[in-house]
């Protein structure tokens, strides 16, 4: 069997090495990153919950050499070389 091809990307600026074909969520979890963003209570962390694209709890923002910044479900989005993955910022409500 051929060894899996390695892919480098970043999560909130920190370099992460993933296997080709791996989802963003799987790669982050393998690196011990379980909190992907701040929950609505402003304190606790949220990460993958359903792991199959239903709950949206694992959402992250992704941009890359050839892709605009988009919110994706990290559990069903494969990693790509040079991806810039960032936490979805805590929702900002102006004037309320």
């Amino acid at each position, binding site marked *: 069997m051929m060894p899996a091809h390695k892919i480098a990307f970043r999560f909130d600026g920190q370099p992460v090495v993933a296997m080709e074909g791996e989802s963003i969520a799987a790669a982050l979890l393998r690196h011990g990153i379980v909190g992907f963003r701040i*929950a609505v209570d402003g304190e606790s962390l949220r990460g993958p919950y359903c792991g199959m694209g239903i709950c949206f709890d694992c959402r992250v923002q992704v941009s890359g050499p050839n892709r605009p910044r988009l919110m994706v479900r990290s559990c069903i989005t494969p990693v790509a070389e040079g991806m810039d993955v960032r936490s*979805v910022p805590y*929702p900002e409500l102006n004037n309320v």
Partner: protein
Amino acid sequence: MNYAAVIIGGGLVGAATAYYLTRAGCDVALIEQGQINNGASGQNAGSLHFQMEHRLIEHGDALAELAATIMPLSLDAIERWGAIETELDQGDLDIVMHGGLMLAETAEHQQKLERKRRLEERWKLPTRLVDESELRAMAPYLSGAVTAASFCPVEGHGNARLVTTALIRAALATGKFTLRTQCVVRETRRQGQSWLVRCREVEGGEEEFSADTVLNAAGAWAADVAALADLHLPVFPVALTMNATEAAPRFIGHLIQHVGRRLSMKQLHEGNVLLGGGWSARMVRKGMYFERNARPEFKLESIRGNISVALDIVPALQGLHLLRSWTGMVGITSDSLPIVGEVPQAPGYFVAAGGSAFTLGLTYGAMVAQLMTRRETDLDISLFSPARFGPLNMFMGR
């Protein structure tokens, strides 16, 4: 075994009827083609809206007067939604009645609000007009473009995912309830003094139920289910779009509707904001027929339109991501009024469909159960009887 009733359709209306009937001591069977809540009950945004809707006052005074006749049902529904959580005693069912605002921006909108309020006052629905300064204090999250509103203190939202299943559990607990899901009705006909309903489980065999009465509570499928009994029923499937944002700190404390624009908005306990208000989706067509069993397709302009109205009204939504959008199908009647009652041309065949079947779902169920068990109802619902479509069924039946 002979049942008191076979209910076709496992949404809120079917489940509520099963609950009230089994509680009255009747043996009931319920047949659902998919799973509980698969249709509009599980797809709608769960508004408990008692004020007259935009779509009901949009088509002239005569139709608005007619639409206002549902208000006794609304008053009954207010009582039932307020009591059901305690009555079922199955914990938190996510029913919130913290008040609802129907908004106006222009002078024309304000006139509509006033016309609506006069109708509601006549029927004793608890609503009152709120002026701009009071509105700012009540709902600081609203845009400055909103100039007035009418407030109904008992509006809010419910969660059919919890309510329908709690009703089903309560019916099962009586020991008098037979539930069949993934089971499609193939035939509905008179057999002597009873009705015979033959159905087929998706992965299983055929089964026959004999019953004194049948209830068609099939929502968007009501016309097709009626056809199985050789009846015409003017209930039409309509496809709608709903949107949900990511969770945010609680800041919207009311059910929000608009008197002149398509908007319903509420923030759930978890913090997500649900947006709807009658934005259409595209029904899948197969040849010259609408495909009832396919998820309606998105219209991008509906998603954009819904968000654009919502942003005009609550500018702070700008800071939230849209998390998901979904489509659903609901059954509406040709005159917007509910169809609740017995079909005169088919004694023992009852219908509960159309109208605001989520908000009024418990009430439909209670009325049908009363009709089936004692031939009369606490409320006068004769206006909503399928008898008004009598001409359609003069030549039907076998």
